[in-house]
C-alpha cells in the first residue's frame, strides 16, 4: 500500500480522473471546503469574542464581591425595623480576620463633589481609596501614578483623575500632573490620570483621593461607604459573600436572617454567568462546525456514488483489462481521500483569510469586539484528521458499490 501511495502512476490516475472531470470534482470539493471554512470561521470568532471578553474583565479581580449597608428589614435586639446600618473600618477588619479564604478587604468611601480648576468646573464622584484598589480594579494610568501608602499615612491632598475628568477640567494639551484642582474649595494636587476602560464601576467621571484624606475632609471617622472583598482563587466567592454578610449582621446587631440590611454585588457570579455563556457558545460552534463538516463529507460520498454510477462502464472496461476489485476500490478510495484533503486544505486557507478579514474589521483598537480571532494548529489538524477518516469511510461506500457490479453488467451498460 505504501509503495502504491508513492507511485507516480497512482497519482497520475487520480489526477487524470479528477482533472478531466472538473465540474464534478469542484462540486464535490465545495461541500468539504464549506464545512471546514465554517468550522474555522466559527471557532476563530468564538475565540476572538472570548479573548475580547477576557481583556474586558482582565482589569478586575473577578473573584470579588462588593458589600454595602442598607436599612434593616427586621426588628432585632430592641432595634426597630428600618434602621439605617452603617459599615465601619472595624467591620472591614473583622471580615478580613474571620472569614475563611479572603485575599484582602478594601474599604472605600464615596461622595459627590464640586470640582473647580480656574474657570472650568464640574460635579464628579470622589472616592476615598487604598492603593489596594489597583488590585481589584486595575487602573491604566496614562500619566503619573496611583495613590500609594505614603499618601495614606500622611493624609496627603492628592488626586488621581480619570481621562474624562481631565477633558472637562483641562484645556487641550495642558499637562495635568502637578496641577492643582479644588475639591470642595480645597486644593488637591493631580498625581495621575487613568484611562477609562470598557468596564467601569460607576461613572467614567471619577476621581480617587487617599482614603484617610477622604475620611478627614468629610469627617467620616470610622464609617465607610462599602467594602470590596476579594477571595483567594481556590475559594468559592459565593460562600465568602454569605459568610461576610453573616459576620456583618452579627457585628451590627442585625437579625441573622435580615436579607435587606446588607446589599452586595458579586462580580464572580456575574463573571461565571458570562463564561458559562461563552462556553455554551463554544460548544455550539463545535457542534455546528462538525455537523457541517460531516454534511460536507457526505456530499463527497454522495457525489462519488453518482460518479461511480457514471463510470460503471469505465470500471467494467478496466476490469476486463485486468484490474482486480482491490485495485478499483483502492483507486476510488484514494480519489475520495485526496479530494477531501485538497478541499480541506483550501478550507483551512480560506478559513484563515476569513479570520484575517474578521480581525481587520472587528479586531483593531482597544474596544475591539474580537481580540486575536484565531484557531490553534492542533484544532486544525484534528479537523483534518477527522476529515481524512470520514473521507476514507465514506469513500468505501462507492468503492464497494463499484466492484459489486459484475464486469459483464458494467460493460453492457450503455
Amino acid at each position, binding site marked *: 500500500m505504501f509503495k502504491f501511495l508513492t507511485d507516480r502512476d497512482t497519482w*497520475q490516475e487520480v489526477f487524470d480522473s479528477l482533472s478531466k472531470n472538473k465540474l464534478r470534482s469542484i462540486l464535490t470539493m465545495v461541500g468539504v471546503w464549506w464545512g471546514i471554512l465554517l468550522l474555522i470561521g466559527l471557532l476563530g470568532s468564538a475565540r476572538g469574542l472570548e479573548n475580547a471578553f477576557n481583556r474586558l474583565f482582565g482589569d478586575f479581580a473577578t473573584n470579588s464581591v462588593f458589600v454595602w449597608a442598607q436599612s434593616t428589614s427586621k426588628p432585632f435586639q430592641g432595634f426597630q425595623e428600618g434602621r439605617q446600618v452603617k459599615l465601619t473600618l472595624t467591620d472591614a477588619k473583622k471580615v478580613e480576620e474571620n472569614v475563611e479564604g479572603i485575599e484582602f478587604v478594601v474599604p472605600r468611601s464615596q461622595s459627590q463633589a464640586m470640582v473647580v480648576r480656574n474657570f472650568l468646573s464640574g460635579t464628579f464622584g470622589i472616592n476615598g481609596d487604598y492603593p489596594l484598589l489597583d488590585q481589584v480594579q486595575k487602573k491604566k494610568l496614562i500619566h503619573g501614578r496611583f495613590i500609594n501608602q505614603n499618601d495614606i499615612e500622611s493624609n496627603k491632598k492628592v488626586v488621581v483623575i480619570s481621562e474624562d475628568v481631565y477633558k472637562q477640567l483641562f484645556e487641550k494639551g495642558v499637562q495635568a500632573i502637578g496641577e492643582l484642582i479644588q475639591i470642595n474649595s480645597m486644593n488637591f494636587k493631580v498625581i495621575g490620570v487613568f484611562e477609562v476602560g470598557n468596564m467601569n464601576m460607576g461613572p467614567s467621571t471619577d476621581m480617587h483621593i487617599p482614603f484617610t484624606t477622604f475620611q478627614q475632609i468629610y469627617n467620616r471617622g470610622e464609617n465607610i461607604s462599602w467594602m470590596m472583598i476579594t477571595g483567594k482563587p481556590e475559594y468559592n466567592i459565593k460562600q465568602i459573600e454569605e459568610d461576610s454578610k453573616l459576620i456583618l449582621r452579627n457585628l451590627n446587631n442585625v437579625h441573622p436572617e435580615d436579607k435587606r440590611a446588607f446589599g452586595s454585588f458579586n462580580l464572580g457570579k456575574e463573571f461565571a454567568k458570562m463564561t458559562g455563556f461563552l462556553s455554551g457558545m463554544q460548544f455550539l460552534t463545535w457542534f455546528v462546525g462538525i455537523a457541517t463538516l460531516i454534511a460536507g463529507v457526505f456530499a463527497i460520498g454522495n457525489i462519488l456514488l453518482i460518479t461511480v454510477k457514471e463510470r460503471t462502464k469505465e470500471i467494467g472496461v478496466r476490469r476486463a483489462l485486468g484490474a482486480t476489485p482491490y485495485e478499483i476500490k483502492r483507486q476510488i478510495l484514494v480519489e475520495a481521500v485526496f479530494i477531501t484533503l485538497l478541499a480541506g486544505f483550501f478550507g483551512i486557507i480560506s478559513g484563515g483569510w476569513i479570520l484575517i478579514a474578521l480581525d481587520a474589521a472587528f479586531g483593531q483598537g482597544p474596544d475591539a469586539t474580537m481580540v486575536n480571532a484565531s484557531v490553534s494548529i492542533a484544532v486544525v489538524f484534528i479537523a483534518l484528521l477527522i476529515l481524512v477518516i470520514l473521507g476514507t469511510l465514506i469513500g468505501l461506500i462507492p468503492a464497494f458499490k463499484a466492484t459489486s457490479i459484475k464486469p459483464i453488467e458494467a460493460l453492457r451498460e450503455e
Partner: protein
Amino acid sequence: MLTISKLHKSYPIGDSSLHVLKGIDLSVEEGEMVAIMGSSGSGKSTLLNIIGMLDEADEGEYILDGVPIKNLTEKKAAIYRNKFLGFIFQSFNLINYKNAIENVSLPLYYQGMKRAERQELGMFHLEKVGLANWAHHLPNELSGGQKQRVAIARALAANPKLLLADEPTGALDTKTSHEIMAFIQQLNDEGKTILMVTHEEDIANMCKRIVRLKDGVIMEDVFVEQVRAEQYV
C-alpha cells in the same frame, strides 16, 4: 488452446429462467480464427463472455491453455483476463479522458509495469496499428476506425494468447470494417488466436472457421476458405 465441453448457462427471468446455452462443445487450436455466428438471442455473446471470464457457466468444463476456469475469485479472474485475453468491443470502450497511448498501456499498468516501459510498449503497439502520430489524442478526436485500432492495440498490449472480439466491425462502415478485418487477419497470420462474434456473413467469411449457434446449441461448425480483406481495401 481452449476446450469447452457440455457448457450450460441460464439466466433467471422473474420466476422462471432462460436457458441460453444448452450444452456447448467447442475446441479451438492455437492460431485459429473463429467466427461465432447466430441471430440475436442465440447465445453467442453469452458464450464469448464466458470464454472471456466476464461471466461464469452454470455447468460444464472450460479449459484455457491448460488451466481449468472454474469458481474463480474476482481477483483471479482479473489476473487471468490480463494475462490470457485481449478484448475488442463493438463500441470500442476506450476511456474517454485518457489519450490513445494511455488507453493502450492501461493493461500494462494493471500488470504492474513501470511507466517508461509501459509507454514504450504502448507506443510499439500504436505504431503497429499505424497510429503513432495520434498517440496523444483523446478518443473523441479520433474517427471510428482509428478508435477501433487503438482498442486493438490495447488488446494486444499485454501480449495475450487469445483475442476476443465482440462485433468488432458492428459500429463501422463497410470500408473501415474491411480495413479493421485486414488488420485482424494480419494478426492471425502472425499467429494470434482470434475468436469473434459477428452476425455479418461477409465478416464471418474472412475467418477460417465458422461456428453457428441457434437457440443455445451449435448448429454447424465448419472450416471455410478465408476471404482476404485486403482486396476490398
